[in-house]
């Protein structure tokens, strides 16, 4: 039986990697993928506690998070495609149209 | 420490051995399914098919295997070698992984997973990556186009096939493969008679899922020079091919389990026995079928032009007679053995029949153009499948809550309603196409 702390540490590790990934990469698509990684870290946390408490409510929350991730990925990638068609770039540094 | 490790591993030994056996034997089986396809194609085209390598071409798969293993392994320039290597491996792995959940008999299952059907669906949806990454990694226009088209087709028809499965699952009441067959045994009827429209949707969806004709645009030779497989040669191409045939068998096995009764014989609820014994009448069917095949082989033997073909025919007749004896002897064996042997026979027979239907459809219908394909999936199959789930669900509620228990009548009424919906959808689609063409195309 794996202790609960192990799952929390794993979740923390993935969260850290995801946060660092969002902050240090230029490519917007990889930023989006890092955000998906953060959401997965949260899912692992929820599932571990669901197992610890012995009911399924954590898993239901996890299902809703996966649903939200799908919606967000679809819309986000649509935005990226629209921007790419206009400016030919997917690097965050070069998306500076609103800068003065 | 060692005994503790052995104790921990013990539940895994038999499944692992079965898995290894399946993975080892399946390439040979796939080779013979290819030979079967060529023979059936030849039969439908009024010719003989491969006859040269071995009597009646029976050693053709071995020749094909040798050729593929000895071919030069070409990697295109500027191809992404990591993905180029991973893609066919991924395809084959996912296709063979699904074999773990298939129930050949009540005791013949590598893993009775609680969510068996969903597991196989999940693994099939992972097979898309083998195609997409393979097309991308080849660094070639035809490959990429074929891969994207194939992936779009797979995703669309996966939705439709899944919804078709759901209408069958409503009657089954469980996601575990063994429980689904058990539910069919309890109701005494195969689910294809309860939800024929669901079976039809799943049949069409599964043909598109496996990239078979008439939905094989992504890999048709006259269209895209074999699509995502263009740049693969030799053994890598053999892996993709193996994955395709494994997918065919897996999809046939799902349909068999969910709609065709798995390991049950036809009419599992008809328990009329032979007078004076406890052997059920319909349980003698396997022996009768094998005897008929043996007699037919004997009849064909004198007509063979070459001596070795006569010997092969005699061997076939002898083998079938032996199997008929085995099936008959199993009737007197204790229950688990009898169910095991007869169950395996019926399961394999149904899977074979479904695969034969695939081959039949391939050589009967012309290929769909890609936009026609997508239109069929999104504008016809998915709405039909959604309405099917609603109608079948309503039918079940009416039966169980209002006490109106006429299963046959309910099945007929739901089928008629669904046929009406299908006709409406087809008519609406035709009208839409007419307006689109009148307006000069989209």
């Amino acid at each position, binding site marked *: 039986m794996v202790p609960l702390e192990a799952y929390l540490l794993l979740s923390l590790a993935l969260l850290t990697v995801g946060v660092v990934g969002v*902050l240090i990469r230029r490519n917007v698509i990889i930023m989006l993928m890092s955000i998906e990684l953060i959401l997965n870290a949260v899912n692992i946390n929820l599932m571990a506690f669901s*197992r610890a408490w012995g009911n399924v409510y954590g898993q239901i929350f996890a299902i809703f998070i996966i649903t939200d991730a*799908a919606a967000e990925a679809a819309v986000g990638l649509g935005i990226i495609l629209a921007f790419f068609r206009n400016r030919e770039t997917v690097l965050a540094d070069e998306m500076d149209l609103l800068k003065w | 420490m060692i005994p503790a490790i052995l104790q921990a591993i013990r539940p895994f030994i038999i499944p692992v051995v079965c898995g290894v056996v399946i993975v080892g034997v399946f390439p040979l089986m796939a080779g013979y399914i290819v030979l079967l396809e060529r023979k059936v194609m030849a039969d439908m085209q009024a010719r003989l098919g491969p006859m040269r390598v071995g009597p009646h071409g029976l050693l053709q798969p071995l020749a094909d295997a040798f050729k593929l293993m000895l071919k030069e392994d070409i990697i295109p320039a500027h191809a992404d070698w990591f993905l180029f290597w991973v893609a066919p491996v991924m395809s084959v792995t996912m296709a063979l992984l699904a074999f773990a959940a298939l129930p050949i008999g009540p005791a013949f299952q590598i893993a009775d997973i609680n969510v068996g059907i969903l597991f196989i669906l999940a693994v099939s949806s992972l097979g898309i990556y083998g195609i997409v990454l393979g097309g991308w990694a080849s660094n070639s226009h035809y490959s990429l186009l074929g891969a994207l088209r194939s992936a779009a087709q797979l995703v669309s028809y996966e939705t439709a096939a899944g919804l078709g499965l759901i209408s069958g699952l409503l009657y089954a009441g469980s996601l575990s493969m063994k429980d689904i067959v058990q539910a069919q045994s309890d109701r005494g009827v195969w689910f294809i008679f309860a939800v024929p429209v669901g079976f039809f949707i799943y049949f069409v969806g599964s043909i598109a899922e496996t990239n078979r004709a008439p939905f094989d645009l992504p890999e048709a030779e006259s269209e895209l020079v074999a699509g995502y497989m263009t740049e693969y040669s030799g053994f890598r191409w053999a892996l993709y091919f193996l994955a395709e045939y494994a997918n065919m068998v897996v999809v046939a096995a799902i349909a068999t389990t969910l709609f065709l009764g798995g390991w049950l014989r036809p009419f599992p609820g008809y328990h009329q026995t032979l007078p004076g014994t406890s052997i059920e009448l319909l349980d003698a069917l396997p022996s009768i079928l094998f005897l008929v095949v043996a007699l037919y082989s004997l009849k064909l033997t004198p007509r063979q032009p070459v001596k070795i073909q006569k010997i092969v025919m005699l061997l076939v007749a002898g083998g079938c007679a032996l199997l008929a004896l085995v099936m008959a002897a199993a009737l007197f064996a204790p229950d688990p053995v009898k169910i095991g042997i007869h169950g395996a026979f019926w399961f394999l027979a149904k899977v074979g029949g479904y695969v034969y239907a695939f081959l039949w459809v391939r050589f009967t219908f012309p290929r769909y153009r890609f936009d026609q394909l997508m239109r069929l999936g999104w504008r016809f199959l998915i709405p039909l499948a959604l309405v099917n789930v609603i109608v079948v669900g309503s039918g079940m509620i009416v039966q169980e809550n209002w006490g109106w228990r006429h299963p046959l009548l309910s099945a007929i009424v739901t089928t008629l309603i669904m046929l009406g919906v299908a006709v409406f959808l087809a008519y609406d689609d035709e009208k839409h196409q007419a307006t689109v063409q009148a307006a000069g195309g989209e």
Partner: protein
Amino acid sequence: MTVDKILFAFFAVLAVASAVLMVTRRNIVHSAVFLITTLLATAGIFLELQAEFLFVVQVILYVGGIMVLFVFVIMLVNLDVSLHMLQFNRQRFVAAALGLALGAQVFFALWVGGHSLRLPSGASLQLPPKNSEAIGDALFRHYMLPFEIASILLLVAMIGAVVMAKRKV
């Protein structure tokens, strides 16, 4: 060393290693493949927690749906020239330090407050044996409203994505 612990260790190491590889690859398609591996490892963790329905949902939706979408878009916007440009932005050192500080803070919080996580009868509590039935029961009985809202959210996302990706609105 039960099978539980071996499986957890395997999936955990795979998940973290794939995640680190994902954020450091130069080739975007390789990054996507490593994210797929991470998601599959996460699904393995779910299975090890005896949540088989979530395992299947994760594989079908996340890996088989969302990541296919990502791979498609990557193939549409992939520029060969981007392989030779900088891949990390100017603030990388500060950002990495801040990220690791966040991780260290939460780790410290878990370390200090870990004993308060003694939940009722921790190790022997079992989830209901029929996982899918329990989830279906809870979802359609207690959480019906969030379920309907999620379906409207997906409808809105679908419309939004279609409108965004059209060439001429």
